[in-house]
């Protein structure tokens, strides 16, 4: 109940985030057309459930005959069109869609509690349940209509059902496991790894199972296992195909047109843009037991990972990313209390006098390790910690073993455990309703999160509602300038604004242009954190939607705001600056004192190269070197962060 209340509260205080309009519009198009083709990168279950209430209410999406493709994807153009057509009603529709998705968080809670209770007992189940329900990352993504929290929930449900079958190989559990596997596949294609992982786990499980049977009995048992394992996979694929309406299943592998290097077998720098590495091989005529859209979605997603996008970590922009990106992100975005509980659980498992890890727990840990390993190996798109969210519930269950391992009768142990749990919960609640921007206290909390991560980890365009509220309370804040990094046109919510001057002008050579022309005018400036940190996505979206009313009203460069200190915030992702004539004089002095080499992201020329280096809808960086943000001069004006 507490989690439902929190999710509803957060959902109602969050404006549409970058991906959500695409999901919502595509979900409506699925219902309208009966096909999944408008959004293939993610499977359709979450979108279908989210938009079911809207479909019943008679909402439709305008489906043009042709849409502008964004890196081979049309869903973002569809989402932008939907946002424009719905105007201010978009936030209401979004809230309805998000509320429908809360069911996934509840399923996850049930699975986490059940698995921890089965493994360790009821108290441990409650501990794991609390970690799930109050995790800021689960709250953040569980309140959105994106597939991340849903995939975490359905993933652990699938693995829990599978583990039940491992312990009791009965046919009713085979069906349950197959159903849950299929539902997990329908939330996010990441879970395709379970099709390989489950047989491996079964093999290992039977290898370490106690023997003592006769050879005949053993052979019969193994044969039954193999048969049932096959049935689980077949049932899972059947459920997956059902979710796609049995659309284009069993197509020959050679008939696909792939775009990623991995599947197309092409050098992306060559002239060709598509192909199929399996044509002409013995696999060409192999029928694929997956819906064609599912496989095409994996191909499109793979393109994103192959492009070596620019990534940001710890104040550093880099082309290509880091293998430890997710470890770093989890380190700063998971509450310290949760870390403490997890550390004790690991210590009591692997310490010198540890209890070790039983095979039931290896079944629990294996999917988490594989998800983490898989995500970390794809360094081409280091933007979103949410990619490893599916690993979280498994680790919450494992952390629950602390109550099983420690000497519970000791009051010190009880107090320590309760202290860590309370710390985790209160720390998470302190950020509500801005849980998406949560950062733990070790790095200074959400106010300093931008020093470590950007994009959906802190700023996904979610705080426009809070900016509107801020403007309502500060009607005398004129002139008002806004650089908003998000999908929605701020004017739709009644925000009257002008776009701040571009950094190219602000940083133009001092002396060539007068300070009056070059520097921002005195007034109030609201700037998204991503814009301040120089996130390159904005230009891409503007170019491809071809419409400024699709959101992203940002100058090409707003990073000069790093020279200033905000006087207020609208959420953690939009900072408010008050520029006065005195501030301007100080800014001018600071910029005279520092050359453009001190400019974040390198020199101005390099910065322009970064911005204009987009290729077919996606930014491709032209340098592989690491540029560290310089130590900026002391912030000018306002209060310090």
């Amino acid at each position: 109940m507490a989690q439902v209340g929190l999710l509803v509260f957060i959902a109602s205080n969050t404006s549409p985030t970058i991906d959500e309009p695409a999901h919502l519009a595509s979900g409506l198009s699925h219902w309208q057309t009966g096909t999944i083709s408008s959004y293939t990168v993610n499977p359709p279950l979450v979108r279908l459930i989210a938009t079911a209430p809207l479909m019943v209410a008679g909402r439709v999406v305008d489906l043009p005959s042709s849409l502008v493709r964004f890196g081979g994807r049309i869903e973002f153009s569809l989402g932008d069109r939907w946002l424009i057509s719905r105007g201010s009603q978009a936030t209401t529709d979004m809230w309805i869609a998000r509320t429908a998705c809360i069911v996934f968080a509840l399923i996850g809670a049930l699975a986490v509690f059940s698995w921890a209770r089965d493994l360790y007992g009821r108290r441990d189940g409650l501990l794991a349940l609390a970690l799930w329900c109050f995790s800021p990352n689960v709250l953040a993504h569980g309140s959105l209509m994106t597939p991340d929290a849903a995939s975490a929930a359905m993933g652990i449900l699938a693995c829990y059902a599978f583990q039940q079958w491992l312990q009791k190989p009965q046919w009713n559990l085979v069906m349950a496991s197959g159903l849950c596997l299929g539902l997990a596949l329908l939330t996010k294609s990441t879970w395709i790894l379970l099709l390989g992982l489950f047989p491996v786990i079964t093999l290992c499980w039977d290898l370490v199972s106690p023997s003592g049977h006769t050879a005949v009995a053993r052979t019969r048992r193994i044969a039954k296992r193999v048969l049932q394992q096959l049935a689980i996979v077949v049932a899972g694929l059947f459920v997956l195909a059902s979710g796609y309406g049995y659309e284009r299943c069993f197509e020959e592998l050679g008939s696909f047109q792939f775009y990623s290097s991995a599947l197309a077998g092409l050098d992306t720098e060559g002239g060709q843009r598509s192909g199929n590495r399996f044509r002409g091989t013995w696999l060409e005529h192999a029928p694929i037991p997956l819906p064609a859209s599912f496989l095409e979605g994996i191909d499109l997603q793979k393109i994103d990972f192959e492009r070596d996008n620019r990534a940001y970590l710890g104040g550093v922009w880099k082309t290509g990313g880091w293998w430890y990106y997710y470890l770093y992100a989890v380190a700063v975005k998971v509450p310290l209390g949760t870390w403490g509980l997890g550390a004790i659980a690991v210590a009591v498992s692997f310490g010198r006098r540890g209890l070790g890890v039983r095979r039931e727990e290896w079944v629990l840990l294996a999917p988490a390790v594989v998800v983490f390993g898989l995500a970390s190996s794809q360094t081409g798109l280091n933007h979103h910690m949410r990619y490893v969210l599916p690993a979280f519930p498994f680790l919450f269950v494992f952390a629950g073993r602390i109550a099983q391992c420690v000497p519970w009768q000791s009051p010190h142990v009880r107090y320590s455990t309760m202290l860590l749990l309370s710390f985790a919960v209160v720390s998470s609640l302190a950020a509500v309703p801005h849980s998406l921007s949560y950062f733990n206290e070790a790095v200074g909390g959400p106010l300093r999160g931008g020093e470590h991560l950007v994009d959906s980890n802190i700023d996904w365009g979610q705080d426009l509602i809070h900016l509107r509220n801020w403007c309502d309370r500060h009607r005398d804040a004129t002139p008002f300038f806004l650089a908003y990094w998000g999908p929605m046109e701020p004017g739709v919510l009644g925000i009257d604004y002008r776009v701040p001057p571009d950094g190219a002008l602000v940083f133009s050579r001092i002396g060539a242009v007068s300070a009056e022309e070059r520097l921002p005018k005195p007034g109030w400036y609201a700037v998204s954190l991503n814009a301040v940190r120089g996130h390159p996505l904005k230009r891409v979206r503007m170019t491809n939607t071809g419409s400024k009313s699709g959101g992203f009203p940002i100058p090409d460069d707003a990073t000069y705001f790093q020279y200033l200190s905000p006087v207020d915030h609208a959420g953690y992702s939009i900072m408010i600056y008050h520029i006065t004539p005195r501030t301007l004089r100080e800014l001018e002095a600071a910029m005279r004192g520092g050359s453009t080499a001190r400019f974040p992201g390198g020199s101005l020329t390099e910065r322009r190269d970064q911005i204009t280096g987009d290729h077919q809808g996606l930014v491709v960086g032209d340098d592989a070197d690491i540029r560290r943000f310089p130590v900026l001069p002391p912030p000018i004006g306002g209060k310090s962060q």
Partner: protein
Amino acid sequence: MMDGEPMGGGNPESPLRPDAPSPHGMLRWAEMFFWTSLVLTPLVYWMNGPTVSREQTYFRIAVVALLAVGGLSLRLCNYRSNRGR
């Protein structure tokens, strides 16, 4: 309130630990959680800095109020339960 008495009841079905908590033990755990959280709240709020929206301000106040009311209610429940024993 929190003496050395084990909070667990008995649950032989639990595969690893046979002392799953009784309903009474659960209530005492819940009470401990509420008081601990209430004590931690000012410190955590201070470490996280000022609020960034009115909704967050109201919510933070509501959390403190809920923890206090919850803690007091559970104290009352546990007091009555102890007297009834």
